[in-house]
């Protein structure tokens, strides 16, 4: 039996398969389909200091091998999360990280401070990369100084695992990665969605209410893989890869490129049990290729 467990800067994951923020709700929505505790961890929905209604409908467009979304961080706010959602999650025996977004550094700080106090939340995924809200998010992730400022500020108040999620909408993602590593990120996750657009030719209107949205799914996998490879070669902290992972083979590609763990996003929409197949498939791959542990393939692309 190949070993799937892995440690990500202090987080001991039973396997390297996590679920991506915004694609797995709060986990509870999957109770009918899978045993949540089989997962390496879950990253819950994007959470902000204040409640957000999100963007107007339509928020979704199907594209070739992918989709656009423009949800716009609809959530009840961190207070609602702490009071109403968190109590439902403490029964799970897997890592739960909260994905945190904000429009100002102060909002990020205030949100992180409240999450600090939640015993069973083992980390934050700092979202400096959401393309779907006007005021912020992505702006922090597209320049080194901005990324540094928010990571630095949150690092000062947040004591547990700080994962920083990068935006792919940049010229040089390795530079941004080095910036956030320098300011104390425990790990780096990537990629968030790529800013994109869909037009309905017949009505001559944008498909999304927000005109542009974020592209996810298999279409972006080759781009995500390239970025994970670039970042893994640039930083020392663990890298968590995502972008279009639909099966175990895709996940293996990310490990080879240098990811210590992966997140599964859009694939959950196609098959809510997909994480189970991916975990089993990784184990099968390791055994077929006679590796003892997932650690034996991380970053082991043969050049």
């Amino acid at each position, binding site marked *: 039996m190949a070993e799937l467990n892995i440690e990500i800067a202090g987080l001991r994951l039973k396997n390297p398969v996590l679920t991506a923020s915004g694609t797995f709700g709060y986990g509870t929505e999957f109770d009918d389909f899978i045993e949540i505790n089989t997962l390496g961890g879950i990253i819950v929905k994007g959470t902000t200091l204040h409640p957000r209604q999100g963007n107007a409908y339509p928020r979704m467009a199907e594209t070739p091998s992918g989709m656009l979304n423009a949800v716009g961080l609809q959530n009840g706010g961190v207070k609602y999360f702490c009071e109403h959602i968190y109590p439902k999650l403490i029964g799970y025996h897997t890592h739960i990280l909260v994905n945190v977004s904000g429009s100002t550094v102060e909002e990020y700080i205030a949100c992180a401070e409240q999450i600090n106090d939640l015993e069973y939340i083992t980390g934050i995924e700092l979202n400096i990369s959401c393309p779907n809200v006007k005021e912020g998010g992505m702006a922090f992730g597209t320049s080194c100084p901005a990324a540094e400022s928010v990571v630095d500020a949150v690092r000062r108040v947040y004591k547990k695992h700080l994962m920083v999620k990068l935006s792919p909408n940049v010229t040089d993602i390795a530079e941004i990665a080095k910036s956030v590593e320098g300011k104390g990120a425990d790990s780096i996750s990537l990629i968030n969605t790529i800013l994109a657009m869909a037009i309905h030719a017949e009505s001559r209107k944008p498909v999304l209410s927000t005109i542009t949205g974020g592209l996810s799914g298999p279409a972006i996998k080759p781009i995500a893989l390239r970025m994970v490879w670039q970042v893994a070669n640039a930083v020392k902290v663990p890298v968590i890869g995502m972008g279009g992972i639909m099966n175990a083979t895709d996940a293996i590609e990310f490990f080879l490129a240098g990811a210590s763990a992966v997140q599964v996003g859009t694939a959950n*929409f196609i098959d809510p049990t997909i994480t189970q197949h991916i975990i089993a498939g990784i184990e099968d791959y390791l055994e077929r290729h006679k590796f003892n542990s997932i650690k034996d393939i991380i970053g082991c692309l043969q050049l």
Partner: protein
Amino acid sequence: MKKTVQDLLVISNRRLNKDHALLVLKSEIPLDGIVPGQFANILVENSQKTFLRRPFSIYQVDYTCNTISILIKAIGEGTKCLSDSIAGQKLSVIFPLGKGFSIPEKKSKALLVGGGVGVAALMILASDLHKAGHQVEILLGARSASDLVELDVFSKYGQVHTTTEDGTLGTRGFVTNHPVFGEDIRSFDKIYTCGPEPMMKAVSKFATTYKIPCEVSLENTMACGYGVCLCCVTQTTDGHKCVCTEGPVFDLNRLKWQN
């Protein structure tokens, strides 16, 4: 019943007319308690142009044979591909999804108004209402006579009225042009509707005017179908709500359709 994702066996595919097909799908897991108005989210595997699943109302359910059926109108790549399914094939289906229609507690007279393929959401409802002893009238509207399917099946559960835009069957015009929306509309205790949004909005004006409780079934575009992507929202009195989990059936009063 619990939501499941299953490979259902296509038992039969009956083509009803040029663009409507009726698929019967067999479940391995015993079916129970499917609510009228619930839906299934089906994967289209044989097409390069589809990525997400496609939602369809559960049209009929047979607890003895353990099958559900789906009425498909081919309008795009996904529906065309599914309506070409052949017996023996398997389809990956997530079901049953969403909150369906409610059956009144006390005996009542119900009007079911369906437009286009929206009629698919109403078949189990008609049957369940009929079984529970309610008086049912069914008004089905379409562009043309050839678009109206399965009228004979509906007629087992109540009186069927029809409208067609080109006048080829029943009253010419839209559903709201039918005499049932005259003075008589007051005689109904409940209206249920599923179809194109403009149609449902026209129907709901009558419901509001005559204060008849009304349930509408929405067809927002969906990515997941079970409440995790937050893409399918509609604006309600209580903010954005997911059509796939809080709906597809909503009490008219919860929707912000007044203006």
